[in-house]
């Protein structure tokens, strides 16, 4: 029952995020969707992931998007249309994709034999996994984040002499 409430909250936030005209409202709706997802993760017992979702997505990514919106201060959207000129084909494609995925989920055999075992991931186990089995991906992620940091700063740097 709790799952249904959080699922509806998440979907409402997601739909609002892509369909509101005002960008800041759209980002706040996205934050609501993230929060709903974090609640779903906590319900499923993935404590670390739920808290990391709040810390990273709501505390960093949403604020990043908000800062970018404030830096792109275009005049309140004067354009009448919010959608791309080729939106009809996109809608058809999206519906087809959803139909395929829903059919696959309903008919798949793996969902029938799903176990309800009490999955548990203590911090010790996650720490051990990160340091022993997944040490290489951890280091690569560190490298990736450094590269993204330097790259983002370089791309957004205002060069000397460039007009405002």
């Amino acid at each position: 029952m709790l799952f249904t409430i959080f699922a509806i909250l998440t979907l409402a936030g997601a739909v609002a995020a892509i369909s509101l005209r005002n960008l800041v409202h759209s980002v706040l709706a996205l934050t609501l969707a993230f929060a709903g997802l974090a609640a779903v993760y906590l319900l499923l017992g993935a404590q670390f992931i739920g808290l990391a979702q709040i810390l990273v997505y709501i505390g960093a990514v949403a604020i990043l998007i908000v800062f970018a919106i404030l830096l792109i201060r275009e005049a309140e959207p004067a354009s009448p249309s919010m959608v791309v000129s080729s939106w009809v084909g996109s809608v058809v494609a999206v519906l087809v994709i959803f139909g395929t995925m829903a059919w696959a989920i309903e008919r798949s055999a793996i969902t029938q034999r799903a176990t309800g075992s009490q999955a548990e991931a203590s911090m010790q186990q996650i720490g051990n996994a990160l340091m022993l089995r997944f040490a290489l991906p951890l280091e690569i992620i560190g490298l990736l984040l450094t590269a993204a940091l330097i790259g983002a700063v370089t791309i957004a740097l205002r060069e000397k002499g460039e007009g405002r």
Partner: protein
Amino acid sequence: MILAPPNTAAETADQIFVILRDWIVRHVPGGLQPIFSDLISVVAILAVFASLFAITTVLERKGLGRIQNRYGPNRVGPFGLLQPLADGIKALTKENIVPLAADQTVYVLAPVVLVVAAFSMYAVLPIGRNMALTNLDAGVLFFFAASSVMELSVFMAGWSSRNKYSLLGAMRAIAQMISYEVPLILASVTVIMAAGSLSTVTIVEKQAGYTGILPHWFILTPWGFAGFVLFMIATIAESNRSPFDLPEGESEIIAGYFTEYSGFKFALFFLGEYIGLFAMSGLGITLFLGGWGAPLSFLTWVPSYIWFFAKLLTLIAVFIWLRGTLPRLRMDQLMNFAWKFMLPMALINLVTVGVWEFLPHGVLRWLVCSVMVVVPYVLLGRGLMQGWKVERRVYKFAE
């Protein structure tokens, strides 16, 4: 949770609130007992920390007044101690002016989000022995997740007021808060490395032993002391208090991101900021100062919650002292300090705690780790101030 019945008077005094709560909960039908128990704890936390907020406002104003060579408020009640009552009545009865162009939903939600996030941080703080509301496996992570939601509410407040000063104040505040969140979390990671767990209750238990009369608090180690100083500076910056209060600089941009708020919503912002300050100080006490542990081994008969609040009040007094003494930092000075001084110190601290754990017990590890902490501090400090020409310090006095 049924505990062994206490057998001495000291233990009874220590566990008095837990015993009281269990007694109240016994009168409730069986299925509802866990929920009632948590509800009583939540109400107790709200009541205690809201009163602490009230006491702090009057202490701060009197303390600042004395530092500035004047009396603080002294009209309401004996020595002005009933001032919070007057402040509360004022805040609740002031006219609630909402700007016409403000974004109504977001404007109203911003203080609510702030207060909810601030109060939820207390769920993992161990206020006394067996007195943490929940013992989450990832308690410290939960704490930082809740504190990062506070930044979002600052933005909501600044943007929804449709006022360029509010927006500017909000952007400055968010830039400051995310810059100082990095040394804050890195300083906590050193404690997590030393204690081996993310659970706040476990971290306090690891600091509960005594050698001779001195406790095993993490602040009494070189890396712990450096980490504590970093943590406290970052806490002051996260709560937008002087000397880091440029985002709400009263002499520059009126009140920054809550310029357009009045009456009850302003009181909620004020409350939320102080509650956030207390919560972060509480985490600092848990991580570095031994939580509810007594400072000397012969003082363990004093109840645990008394020690927690004594340490909290000491930290609050230090914050008030800093507010009255130091001038405000400029925005670029603030950001330089965070990224060029605190971040390298926090990283060096991480390496130091690793070295501490691997060296054998004794004088050697104290020496090595102290050198590893002090030398970069001096070099970075002098280097940044004097543009990397480390030379003899020259004092210039006014003639």
